[in-house]
């Protein structure tokens, strides 16, 4: 590190430097005697402007600034999974520094030894991105040491199986251009630069989240992107936590961006205890936490999203399916706005800088299912919570995020205040992945999923129409088939869409159980309509089936016993049919008497 200049002016997280040596735009630098992390955001002649990632109180003009020669980067190395880092990847919750953040702290994970197994031999030809060896990072996640993307060539040395540390060279590659390149365990990658891959693949299957309203009605594909807007208290964070727990991804990156410290404490308390549904191992063994809470410096909040997505890409490149949850991207956008304001940039919509949409687009572009440089398949799925001021979805961050994501999960204040969670509005939410994931569902569950969804969707639509009528004339005035529709739509909402994140059985729901619950409602509804057409009163049907009990099946029946739901369905449909037959027989008798 070399001194590049001295501070000229400090204003909050922004500082101006009088340069003595050249620096690059986006270069990471260290500021002052306390060695605060910062980044060059603009250059003008012999002056540079920095954003500083730490508390700046106490900095004085004239303090030195040191360059690093590289842009703001993350370290990709074993030890990341299971750890908690701040927005610029410094470890949290470690050391004896006490419970408060100390400016200028550095990361020291480099001493730990990891068991390395080589997967190449001397003389092998390797592409950039090829795996040279692996480390069992956690019992759930294998870390692969990759040839740097630009170092295609021939292996000239490989470390034997055994312990390695971050800075150890585990292989050497002579590139086609004739350079000797060292491959170290730990590698750096600039956070604002997407990592390369060989090819982008179409979405082909869903990422199962375990949330019925999402998987069944508004699915997200592996490698897809979704936005999750909602006013405060609507359930964004609980849903993001549920996704982090229940999704069938290999690695989860959870970015707590400008939100509550206690929500991070909650993850740290729960995840080591909870089981990964796929491996039975603690959830923390597949989770990376990036936490830049609202009381932490605002510039690092801006960086945290990039730190998170770069780590996600790094694990994707090792052949993993990675899902990233960011809560909340609005705080990221606000950090952008705050920095732009301090730089006196021209504001566009609501004070946000004009480049807000392009930054959002570039972020969500980093989602995708790909063929990695090593030829494997990997994916990054991105789910961003959005916190619109006043719950107004027409504000810029919600609007632009909606444009750049393919699934839109709108959370509703009224549903939340009725404690219908997840408060995903069924009118107004959507997913463009329905067609892409339908074949997977048919294959996995053996039912015509598309048709089932359509029938359930029709019932919800009928319900919305009837609710409007009820508000005008009251339910009593409606004909029987509509009363039945209202009752069964209620069952669909209560017994399928509503899902209690706190319930041991209901918190996450397997695809087969989801399909069975939906079938139960749809087939019971249709059987009831048939009975009503035969002259049965809806009240008779309500007496014949215990709708409240059917609504509790989701909590009573665990995933691995879900065929019991089919039994309950058969019983209910049979009960309705019996009522219908009785009515038909009675009518036939009456008509027989009459003739």
């Amino acid at each position, binding site marked *: 590190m070399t001194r590049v200049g001295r501070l*000229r*002016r*400090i*204003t*909050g997280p922004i500082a101006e430097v009088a340069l003595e040596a050249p620096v690059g735009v986006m270069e990471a630098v260290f500021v002052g005697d306390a060695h605060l992390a910062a980044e060059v955001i603009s250059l003008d002649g012999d002056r540079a402007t920095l954003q500083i990632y730490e*508390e*700046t*109180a*106490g*900095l*004085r*003009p004239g303090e030195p600034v040191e360059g690093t020669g590289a842009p703001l980067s993350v370290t990709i190395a074993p030890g990341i999974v299971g750890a*908690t880092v701040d927005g610029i990847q410094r470890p*949290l*919750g*470690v050391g004896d520094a006490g*419970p*408060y953040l100390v400016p200028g702290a550095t990361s020291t994970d480099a001493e730990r030894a990891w068991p390395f197994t080589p997967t190449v031999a001397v003389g092998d030809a390797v592409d950039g991105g090829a795996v040279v060896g692996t480390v069992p990072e956690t019992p759930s996640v294998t870390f692969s040491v990759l040839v740097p993307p630009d170092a295609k060539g021939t292996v000239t040395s490989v470390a034997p199986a055994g312990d390695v540390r971050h800075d150890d060279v585990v292989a050497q590659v002579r590139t086609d251009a004739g350079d000797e390149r060292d491959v170290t365990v730990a590698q750096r990658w600039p956070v604002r630069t997407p990592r390369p891959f060989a090819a982008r693949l179409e979405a082909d299957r869903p990422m199962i989240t375990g949330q019925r309203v999402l998987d069944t009605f508004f699915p997200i594909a592996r490698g897809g992107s979704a936005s999750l807007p909602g*006013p*405060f*208290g609507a359930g964004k964070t609980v849903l993001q936590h549920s996704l982090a727990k229940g999704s069938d991804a290999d690695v989860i990156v959870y970015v*707590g961006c*400008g939100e*509550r*410290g*206690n929500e*991070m*404490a909650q993850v*740290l308390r729960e995840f080591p205890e909870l089981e990964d549904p796929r491996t039975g191992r603690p959830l923390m063994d597949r989770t990376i936490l990036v*936490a830049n*809470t*609202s*009381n*932490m410096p*605002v510039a690092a909040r801006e960086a945290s999203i990039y730190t998170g997505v770069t780590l996600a890409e790094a694990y994707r490149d090792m052949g993993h399916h990675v899902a990233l949850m960011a809560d909340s991207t609005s*705080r990221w956008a*606000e950090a952008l706005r*705050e920095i732009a304001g301090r730089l006196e940039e021209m*504001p566009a919509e*609501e*004070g946000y800088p004009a480049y807000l949409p392009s930054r959002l687009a570039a972020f969500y572009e980093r989602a995708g299912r790909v063929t990695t440089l090593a030829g494997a398949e990997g994916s990054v799925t991105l789910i961003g919570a959005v916190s619109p*001021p*006043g*719950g*107004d979805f027409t504000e810029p961050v919600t609007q632009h995020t909606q444009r750049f994501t393919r699934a839109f999960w709108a959370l509703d204040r009224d549903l939340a*205040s*009725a*404690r219908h969670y997840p408060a995903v509005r069924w009118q107004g939410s959507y997913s463009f992945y329905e067609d892409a994931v339908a074949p997977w569902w048919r294959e996995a569950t053996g039912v015509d999923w598309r048709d089932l969804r359509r029938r359930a969707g029709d019932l919800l639509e009928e319900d919305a129409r009837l609710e409007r009528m*009820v*508000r005008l*004339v*009251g*339910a*009593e005035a409606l004909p029987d088939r509509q009363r039945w529709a209202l009752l069964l739509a209620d069952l669909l909402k*209560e017994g399928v869409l509503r899902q209690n994140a*706190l319930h041991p059985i209901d918190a996450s729901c397997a695809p087969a159980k989801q399909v069975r619950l939906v079938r139960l409602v749809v087939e019971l509804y249709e059987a009831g309509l048939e009975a009503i057409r035969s002259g049965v009163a809806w009240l008779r049907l309500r007496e014949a089936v215990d*709708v*409240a009990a059917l609504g*509790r099946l989701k*909590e009573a029946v665990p995933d691995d016993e879900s065929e019991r739901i089919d039994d309950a369905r058969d019983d209910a449909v049979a009960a309705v049919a019996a009522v219908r037959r009785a009515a038909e027989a009675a009518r036939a008798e009456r008509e027989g008497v009459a003739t």
Partner: protein
Amino acid sequence: MIDVVGVDRIDGPLLVVEGFAGAAYGEVVEVTAPTGTHLGEVLSTGTDAAIIEVWGDTTGLRTEDVAVRFRGETLRLGVGPASLGRVFDGLGRPRDGLPAPPAAVTADVHGAALDPAARAYPSDVIRTGVSAIDAMNTLVRGQKLPIFSAAGLPHDALATQIALQAGGGEDEDVAVVFAALGIAHDVAAGFRERFEGSGLAGRTALFLNLADDPPMERIVTPRAALTLAEHLAFEAGRHVLVILTDMTNYAEALRELSARKNEVPGRKGYPGYLYTDLASLYERCGRIRGRPGSLTQIPILTMPGDDVTHPIPDLTGYVTEGQIVLSRALHRAGIYPPVDVPASLSRLMKDGIGEGATRADHAEVAAQTFAAYARLRDVRSLATILGENALSATDRTYLAFGEAFESGLLAQDPEEARDLDTTLDLAWAALSHLPASELGRVSEATLAAHYGGGHGAGAGHGGGAGHGGAGDAT
């Protein structure tokens, strides 16, 4: 410390000292003029000039007779257990005529950011004796739970009732730190009298920035109060309850300062960093792993125009762990406390309640009551439009539920500390007006243990369905 005499420019609350390169960013300054002394802070510092923000009225200041003392450190406050029982001004200076209390430590009023990984997740329930809170919006130690109120509603009474009932007893570990932000003298005096007349006298510290005190000092007041609270909670191991009232006045002072600094205004003229600024106060709360104390916050704010989407309640709700919303309609109907149940929320309730902590049926009865109350709203609006005759038999049971809930559970005397069993039994009494088929959020086992209805739609008890009462869920 460095003294500079004379400044180059005065621009609203900002002073510019040119040719002075010695200031540290964020350091505190004393600005002395013939009219008095103000505190301020370095807002921007460079090799050519320092810009100072003054927390006080700069009207009438003249550039040549202003002396600025740079203290070389950020604003610090001496705090300790001896601060309890005392009254301070908005900057933390004694206001009761006594000398400054002996300080255990001197701490930066801005606090230091707590490492999220060092926090302990709060889950110990505080029994407030207020049914609307204990049953439906349970408060836990280390939570920040604001009261969203509006002009003319009894938020002061509710906050005092919570403080006294949660901490006024024999529990010597509890301390109260009260920050008055631009409220009237009589309101502050009211709080003070009720604290003094209770077991809390001697365990309360008051920081008063009243309506006629300099509004700019209001920026410091909550920070000074929280500095003491943090010390008491995290160093001295006390359970500290902080009441900040009225946060609307605080945010308005921040807006005024921002406007005078010519910053780009955000929604309704509030600065774009209002969220971050509020978070820098509200996040000074919680528990720390391995330390015994806790810091619980009850900020009070009045919603301008009763509008919950106004930036102050909105951004507060985005930071705090729930909100207790007061309803004008319930207040008019004579119900105290007029808690708007569907709009209120305690985010930390879910991990606090249940068997061992409150009662095994708590989560279910609360969930069912929320659902029923939401349905009640629809039924009531239908009844208003179409008359009760248009209601179905089931709908009518909701009206009975609503009446029993509001007059039985919600309403209570400002002096009444109701125990939790009674509170939850009152919730069951209200729910027992509904047919069992409406109680889908309660498991069959819980229903069997607590439900006292089921004598046909509309059958209701006055309030006698009790805990463990005969289950008749058929």
